[in-house]
């Protein structure tokens, strides 16, 4: 099977978040970046498992400049066979989706994997856009993939239960927790990754219909308010007027 995994670079979960250019740009100075965990732990590992089961190749694709090469190397160290980097900074979901679709349209991949979202902008958009651009079926937030038969059965966790979707390749799927277990690359994998191809290709011109107006950090959390156990009226008042949950 020919498998494609879309991978993204995101700030580390412990990074201190700030903005620049009049609060319209994320400030990446001094921030440690990682391979987006949903892409790494679930999408990539499930693709590698599928390859181990059915044979084939796993290609990873990333849109970004050469500073992204380290996260691409990590994906190769975990077990992807080759990598493609579209050599331009990631601009927007639609731009990223168009770059991926442009590459994928001539490659006839059987399954295109993504993480359910990136942990920075939490857009969860690129998968649906890629599917639409390639005119492929799309299943979002899949928590399990049964690949034991000719067709695939994907499970989605929905409110109060699960939904099972039966479909045939080719399709696009975004992976949620449960799809696979994290694999930590070993030293041998890290060294082997150096010999695997990383093809850098130019991006295409795209246009976007949206732009960021501004980012705002959430308000700082207030301290804990202690209320006397006998003073129920005060508790109710605070829940009503301040917390506004009643």
């Amino acid at each position, binding site marked *: 099977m020919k498998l494609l995994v879309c991978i993204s670079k995101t700030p580390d979960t*412990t990074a201190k978040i700030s903005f620049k250019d009049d609060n319209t740009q994320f400030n990446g100075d001094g921030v*440690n970046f990682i391979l987006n965990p949903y892409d790494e732990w679930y999408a990539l590992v499930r693709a590698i498992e599928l390859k181990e089961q059915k044979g084939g190749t796993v290609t990873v694709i990333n849109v970004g400049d050469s500073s992204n*090469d*380290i996260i691409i*190397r*990590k994906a190769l*160290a975990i077990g992807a066979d080759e990598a493609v980097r579209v050599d331009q900074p990631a601009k927007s979901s639609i731009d990223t989706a168009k770059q991926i679709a442009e590459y994928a349209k001539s490659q006839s991949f059987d399954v295109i994997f993504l993480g359910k979202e990136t942990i920075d902008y939490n857009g969860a958009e690129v998968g649906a856009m890629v599917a639409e651009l390639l005119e492929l079926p799309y299943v979002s937030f899949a928590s399990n993939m049964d690949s034991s038969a000719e067709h695939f059965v994907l499970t989605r966790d929905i409110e109060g239960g699960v939904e099972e979707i039966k479909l045939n390749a080719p399709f696009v799927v975004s992976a949620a927790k449960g799809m696979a277990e*994290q694999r*930590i*690359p*070993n*030293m*041998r994998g*890290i*060294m082997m*990754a*150096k010999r695997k191809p990383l093809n850098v290709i130019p991006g295409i011109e795209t246009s976007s219909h949206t732009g960021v107006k501004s980012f705002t950090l959430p308000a700082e959390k207030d301290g804990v308010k202690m209320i006397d156990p006998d003073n129920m009226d005060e508790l109710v008042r605070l829940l009503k007027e301040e917390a506004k949950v009643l």
Partner: protein
Amino acid sequence: MSHANDTVITKSDKTDRYQHHDYYGVDQLLSEDHLLARDAVRDWVKQEVSPIIEEYAEQAKCPVHLFKGLADIGAFGPSLPLKYGGGGMDEIAYGVIMQELERCDSGLRSMASVQGSLVMYPIYKYGSEEQRMKYLPKLGSGEFIGCFGLTEPDHGSNPSGMLTNVVDDGDAYILNGSKMWITNSPIADIAVVWAKREDGRIIGLIVEKGMKGFSAPEIHGKWSLRASITGELVFEDVRVPKANVLPNVEGLKGPLGCLSKARYGIAWGAIGAALDCYDSALRYSQERIQFGKPIAQFQLTQKKLAEMITEITKAQLLAWRLGSLANDGKASPAQISMAKRNNVHMALEIAREARQIHGGMGITNEYPIMRHMMNLETVLTYEGTHDIHLLITGMDVTGLNAFK
């Protein structure tokens, strides 16, 4: 061994909150390989070891199941060629791996140091091709556990006085004597043992578990490296085939070559222990409120923290430079001594200061501080004592030997 039958603990509710500290941008001196290796080992440690290490240390039990995990991640002999079960990486990669292991526990790092630097390295460096192919892949994959026998009950800093000896007996040597303070020995499948021949020359032999007259009793009662197993090696007329002699080295330079490798790893490893203590102390000082404000706001706490990160930064640069020299094959034993001595002492001092910042909590197993501090007392002494390394530097700069 009794350890093999013990219940394996793999989970707990402890979370490792460690965050890396890189005050001088030393990460920018590292390559992609180094960063990937370091982060992989850190992830593995956080998942598999941090949650259980306190429990094993408290019980004074070695988490033997981790040998397989250490092997799978590639922590055994990472700088040896791939062909022999190594990782084909450079010396700095080896260093950062040791740092991440010791960030968790010096005993964990010792398990890997001994297997890689003191067992795999001498077989690779001094062994025959047959010996390499016979032992190295099994050691690299964790199927075999190895140990290294140099120190004796009466000969620690003075290994050339060793009493362990071999007598020629045709196609074998008859080995007699004993070795002391041997990491991994009670659970080891093979031991690289250094012994004197009848002509007084020191040779290395691979002694296998099960050879008649060979035993490895455990040493109990350690208040340090409690999660690492230590024992003796006792040889009573052990017949070791000459095929098990390391053919390509004679004299003390054999074991000392291995020790240089291991000491190099300790120079990096100690930074890990120091970073863990600093990280915990910094976080604790920001969360602990006294007199209405975090104790991090007090000048005396800041003095401790500022000095800690200064010393860690100096040690990081020392280790990095030593690593660069080692990659070029130019790190002298004396330069390795300086880094081992400085960095271990630095880590021990930081553990003590961090213990003070943690107040009473610092003495409990809620925090890693006392465990690191007790571990580092061993690290200060093993692989060349703090004082002996000073004399090595002294001899190197004056040309005069103050050992004897």
